[in-house]
């Protein structure tokens, strides 16, 4: 999987690169409009992370160029400007997603995965981990081939944790992902716990080989029982 990160902030660029490499992606970087343009024109990527505020140009122009070349690269716009206009314009121009800074790396990870998955609609609708199978289209969860009933939020939490397996997903990242943008200001994320508790119980009841571990002070983490 090859990902191009176009971002003018060197620290941010290095950070995203480090993170994505740890997720086993091949990461290319561009730090300004021109080098971004060069790479877009010359190579194909599975996903492009595009900062729209760049020195020497607007990221949206890059997006336009990309679409005019009829390339199939998925694009996720990342922007410090949480502006609705930019979001609408970006999505109109064919971006696949829009993420406002600051974001959680776990959220970025989940978005990249779902964007890539959406593009590769070649039967990879199933997410599989140990004895847990998830059909994303039908929102169906099978543990040991047995269907498990999960409500919408439990399902979404499971997907989010699964996409970020082996990482800690902070409570606020989960709240933002499942409950929406404004929930991150609700200051008290303990309400997530009741959903987690139910989900955990269901996983245990069906003898899933995965479990949700609590990381004190941070959030939750999907762990495989094989290791423990």
């Amino acid at each position, binding site marked *: 999987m090859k990902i191009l990160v176009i971002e003018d902030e060197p620290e941010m660029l290095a950070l995203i690169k480090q993170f994505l490499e740890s997720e086993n992606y091949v990461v290319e970087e561009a730090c300004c409009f021109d080098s971004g343009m060069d790479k877009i024109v010359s190579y194909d990527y599975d996903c492009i992370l595009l900062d729209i505020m760049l020195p020497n140009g607007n990221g949206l122009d890059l997006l336009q160029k990309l679409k005019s070349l009829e390339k199939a690269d998925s694009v996720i716009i990342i922007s410090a400007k949480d502006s609705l206009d930019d979001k609408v314009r970006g999505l109109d121009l064919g971006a696949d997603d829009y993420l406002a800074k600051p974001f959680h790396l776990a959220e970025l990870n989940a978005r990249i995965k779902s964007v890539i998955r959406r593009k590769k609609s070649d039967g990879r609708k199933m997410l599989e981990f140990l004895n847990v199978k998830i059909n994303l289209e039908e929102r169906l969860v099978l543990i040991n081939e047995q269907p498990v009933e999960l409500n919408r939020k439990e399902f979404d939490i499971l997907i989010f944790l699964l996409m970020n397996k082996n990482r800690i997903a902070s409570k606020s990242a989960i709240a933002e992902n499942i409950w929406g943008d404004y929930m991150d200001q609700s*200051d008290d994320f303990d309400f997530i716990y009741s959903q987690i508790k139910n989900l955990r119980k269901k996983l245990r009841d069906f003898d899933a080989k995965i479990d949700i571990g609590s990381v004190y002070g941070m959030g939750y983490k999907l762990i495989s029982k094989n290791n423990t």
Partner: protein
Amino acid sequence: MKLINHTLLFLSVTLLLTVSLWAALFYTQLMTHFKATVDEGLANYKIVLIDKLKDENPVKKQNVFAENIYIIRSVNEDYALQVRDTYKDTLVYSAMKNKNYHTRLLTTAFVATDGKYYEMKVISQELDDRKLIEKLATSLFWLFLLLFISSVLVNNFVLKKTWKPFYELLKYLNDFRLEKNRLHLPTKTKIQEFILLNNSIQTLLKSNVAVYNSQKQFIENASHELQTPLAIGINKLELLAGENGLSQEQVARIGNIIESLQRLSSLNKSLLLLSKIENKQFKAAENVNFNEISSTITADFSDFSEYRKIKIKYQSDDPFHHCMNKNLADILMMNLVKNAIFHNRQGGEVVIHISATCFSIENTSDEPEMDTEKLFERFNQNAKSKNSTGLGLAIVKAISDVSGLVVTYSYNGRHIFSVGSADQ
């Protein structure tokens, strides 16, 4: 006291004084002239009388003013020679009228043809100065009234017209709001002083607006510039927390730092949102149904409220519609509902009431009544809510202000926030 009345008061006092002084002067002048005329008449009469009397032999003495208007008594030569014609005011008793009356008295002396000396006193007709004063006073009263009325009229017409630009300027300053950036001053005027005043005020306002804008710009820029380093900080810590070999306690500490940064970040987002609202960057308006919004939002918050065992009651007589930006309506409702849940007590209640003209959100709470004055100010929060940004209600207020809504707070044991259209 209004300027017009002020000048009017001064003008009328001056008028009254001038008119009275003038009346006194006029009266003395008139009286002097009148007496002179009367005296002249007396002198003529005296000559006629003496001509008539001096040949009578002997001259008939007359002791009182009766049918004649003179008295005559004989005097010795020495006395008669030193008598000069004198005129004076005197009171004479009239038996006929049975009263004393004012008159002029001429005292003179003459020698008759028989060589005897006589003194003669002649009086004029009655001088009715009281009647004169009365007449004078009445006409002066009318004069004063006339002058007063005309000065009132002149004041009203001329002054009002003259000061019109001033009052317009006052109204303009009254209506002026720094954040609205309306700078064109009212009507042009030809009066130099007002032109100067207009210019000075324009300069003053311009510099104020410039300062205000640069402050606002500063806050916006600062918030923007903060976003990236904040994002980097949070993300680096998230990566760090995921590294192997960290103790539970270390991860918890990192979690604490992330939490603080996150709070900073949401504060930042709120500040940016506030400045966007105030800059009117949410333009698109549509007819928003608050019933729909409130049911979506209560559903969104259901996990949060269930966790805190808070019941959300929903009453609606009629749907409440208002033409505004949909996003802002969402944020407005969300902030109010969130507040109502967040500042509630465990097992409390939130009641959302919607009618055709307004909606209200009331909640139970252990917190006492809040100060209505400061409630909607930025960063006005009570100590208990250390986790909130202190901007929620400021955002609510800002949204109401730009959307033609009015938000009010009341307390009856429960905290009640009501939102209604500003037109009603």
